[in-house]
């Protein structure tokens, strides 16, 4: 069952198109990583999903209900954590957590609230004015995980958290996943995405360019290969799916496209393989390739015009 479903979602701010026909599908019970370069449209998509922004075109639904029309009903089942949490300076962290819970119409199950405060090492008696960035983030995280939600929408939820707290966060996500809840996680921390997410979607310049499991995506990426053969290796350059061929003292190094791997190996084996090393693409490589792409200049102009 699809929890989040968008169809040709488009959002324009005046003349600027922030989202251009985004199709996003998140299944029940999965953790979906939503990644892309700065200004790609992640937060905009999320804010449309929360009914905070109104889509210019296209459909977006959560649990089968329209996100704009049924926002209030839907939000009873959704917990949201923004990346930049601004709180009321003269309320304490504890007060804010209770407020958020009661606004969602929830009571924390049992001692869930205390347990989370304990785990995140948060002092709930301090005024929000005095919290550090990470501590403000913790307030939002505790409020989100303490109330029972069916869908967690997290937009760079760990920005400012220390590595220890980052781990606590990952445990929390794993727990809700084990309970069969759904999570949409936007993040720039790739190791976090790799560890937590079942599937990822990559957005760039307002368009979804890739979506699938990490293995699927890896498959689309290049593996770096190093081969040493008895006979001189010929015709490699002309083979489909081979890139960056270089001679390295008697050996040849190159990049191979995942889906062309079979043909490449067949070709190489004809020359008598002495040594073959292959390094699987790191997640970094994978993302770099997608992030840079041809749409690179969009991010560029964006950087210049945003003051």
């Amino acid at each position, binding site marked *: 069952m699809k929890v989040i479903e968008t169809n040709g979602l488009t959002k324009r*701010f005046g003349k600027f198109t922030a989202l251009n026909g985004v199709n996003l599908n998140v299944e029940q019970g999965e953790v979906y990583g939503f990644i892309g370069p700065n200004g790609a449209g992640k937060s905009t998509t999320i*804010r449309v999903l*929360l*009914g*905070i*922004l*109104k889509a210019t075109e296209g459909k977006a639904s959560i649990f089968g209900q329209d996100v704009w*029309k*049924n*926002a*209030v*009903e*839907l*939000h*009873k089942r*959704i917990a*949201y954590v*923004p990346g*930049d*949490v*601004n*709180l*009321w300076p*003269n*309320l304490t962290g504890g007060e804010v957590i209770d*407020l*958020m819970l*009661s*606004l*969602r*119409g929830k009571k924390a199950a049992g001692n869930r609230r205390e347990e989370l405060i304990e785990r995140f090492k948060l002092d709930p008696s301090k005024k929000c004015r005095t919290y550090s960035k990470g501590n403000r983030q913790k307030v*939002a995280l505790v409020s989100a995980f303490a109330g029972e939600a069916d869908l967690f*929408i997290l937009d760079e939820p760990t920005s400012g958290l220390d590595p220890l707290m980052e781990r606590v966060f990952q445990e929390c996500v794993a727990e809700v996943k084990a309970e069969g809840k759904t999570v949409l996680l936007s993040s720039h921390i790739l190791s976090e995405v790799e560890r937590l997410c079942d599937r990822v979607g990559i957005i760039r310049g307002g368009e979804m360019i890739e979506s699938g499991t990490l293995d699927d995506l890896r498959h689309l990426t290049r593996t770096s290969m190093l081969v040493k053969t008895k006979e001189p290796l010929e015709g490699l350059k002309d083979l489909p799916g081979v890139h960056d061929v270089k001679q390295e003292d008697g050996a040849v190094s190159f990049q191979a496209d995942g889906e062309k791997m079979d043909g490449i190996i067949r070709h190489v084996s004809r020359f008598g393989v002495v040594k073959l090393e292959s390094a699987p693409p790191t997640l970094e490589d994978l993302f770099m390739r997608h992030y840079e792409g041809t749409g690179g200049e969009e991010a560029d102009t964006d950087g*210049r*015009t945003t*003051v």
Partner: protein
Amino acid sequence: MAERLFSGTGRLSRLFIRRDRLRLSIWITAIVLLNVSTAASFTGLYMSEEEKQAMAGTMENPAMTAMLGPGYGLENYHEGAMMAHQMLLFMAVVTAIMNILLVVRHTRADEEEGRVELIRSLPVGRLSTLASTLVVMTVVNTAVALLTGVGLAVVGIESIDFAGSLLFGAALGAAGLFFAGVTALFAQLSESSRGTVGLSFAVLGGAYILRAIGDVSSEGLSLVSPLGLILRTEAYVNNYWWPVFVTIGIAGVLLVLAFYLNLRRDLEAGFLPSRPGKKQASAFLKSPFGLSVRLQRTALISWAVGMVVLGVSYGSVLGDLEAFFEASEMMREILAPDAALSLTEQYLTMLMAVIAMICTVPPLMMMLKLKGEEKKGRIDHLLTRVVSRGRTMGSYFLLAMITSALMLFLAVSGLWAAAAGVMDDPMAFSMVFEAAMVYLPAVWIMIGAAVFLIGVLPKFSGFIWAYLGYTFLVVYLGELLQFPEWLKNLSPFGYVPQVPVEELSFTVLAVLTLVAAVLVIAGFTGYRRRDIAG
């Protein structure tokens, strides 16, 4: 659908009250106490019937009308009539300011800071933030109305009766609600809280000026202004309720409009266009002073225009005033004017005091921006670069000083030019100029006090507004209500020689300037030593 748009309003209203319980109590108490204590002070004032009638005589003149609104019930000028005539406008402005500040704080300012986003991700209606703000503001204005009404009646002056007091309170509440509506509307139109505050205050200023001109020359104009409208209640004398209902009605229309626009727009968006800016910083912007000017450019220009308009509208009254005095031989004898000075010039001194105090607002805003920037953590951008504390504060201080002279100059030029057009016997520019500029040292003390607070007691820097409010109260109303001298002398404006009626005393001005300098030096020293909040 409607129910969903507003769901959670009650909960959010309670959050509003929880956040601002102190702020709300202070505002309400201050307004009610001010009203009640003024009424109480009447018991000892204007004893004889003759004195009351002499007072009534002065109230008929156009300068008074421009400042306080049209006099009424002058044939039998009892305490009730005095109270409503002399206090209602002033208190309505105070109530309006309260409404503007509170509504912005809970609508656009919260939105700008991203707190509304957090709220909106919860099962809360799209209109609930605005709705809860208006619910609370209605409660607050009702509280002001009822407490003022009951409080005034309880003072126990015969002519300040219950029916009139209730109407007086209701008029305040209605004016407050009107400006809550205005602000709610601008909070939808403008994209920033600064813009919202600016536009709302522009409407307040415009309403005051429109009323001043209308009251003096054409009644119709006054009826367009909410402030003019509520003065038509003529509390304690005729007790007309219709202006209250009309004002509330218009406020209702504004609110509906605000709700409609809120529904139509994206969160954090507005309707007024924001143009794309320059790609590169001009040479001017690249210095701390340039930055302080650039950040406040819009405010600076708006205030400059506002001051000219204020000057022109006061100046245009002077012609009527001259004619009034010429027509009334008796008045001249009662007031026994100095032979060398026209009555017009005597009134000029009073106008100057008011103008000088209004001109103190923009320089204080310019100075306090330093604190605002600190609170937002943006001063760090300067201080972590090669900019000293002294230079940082100095930039804002310099701007405030320039603004103080500029605003006074613009207002007085407007006044003189308009007066020259309407008077048979125009005043010399040098005289008018002098009468205004003598207030500069007092304005500098106010700036100095702001510098001092920012440098030494940063938590209390907002108190400078309370001090200016106090100054306004004692100078603006002190004359009418005959406050004791020492109350006036708690404010620097109380010491300023009232040129041309009084002798120009350089000693006094030098002492005032010295006090300002001491405050400034202490403030700079403190700023260099203290922690910068972030």
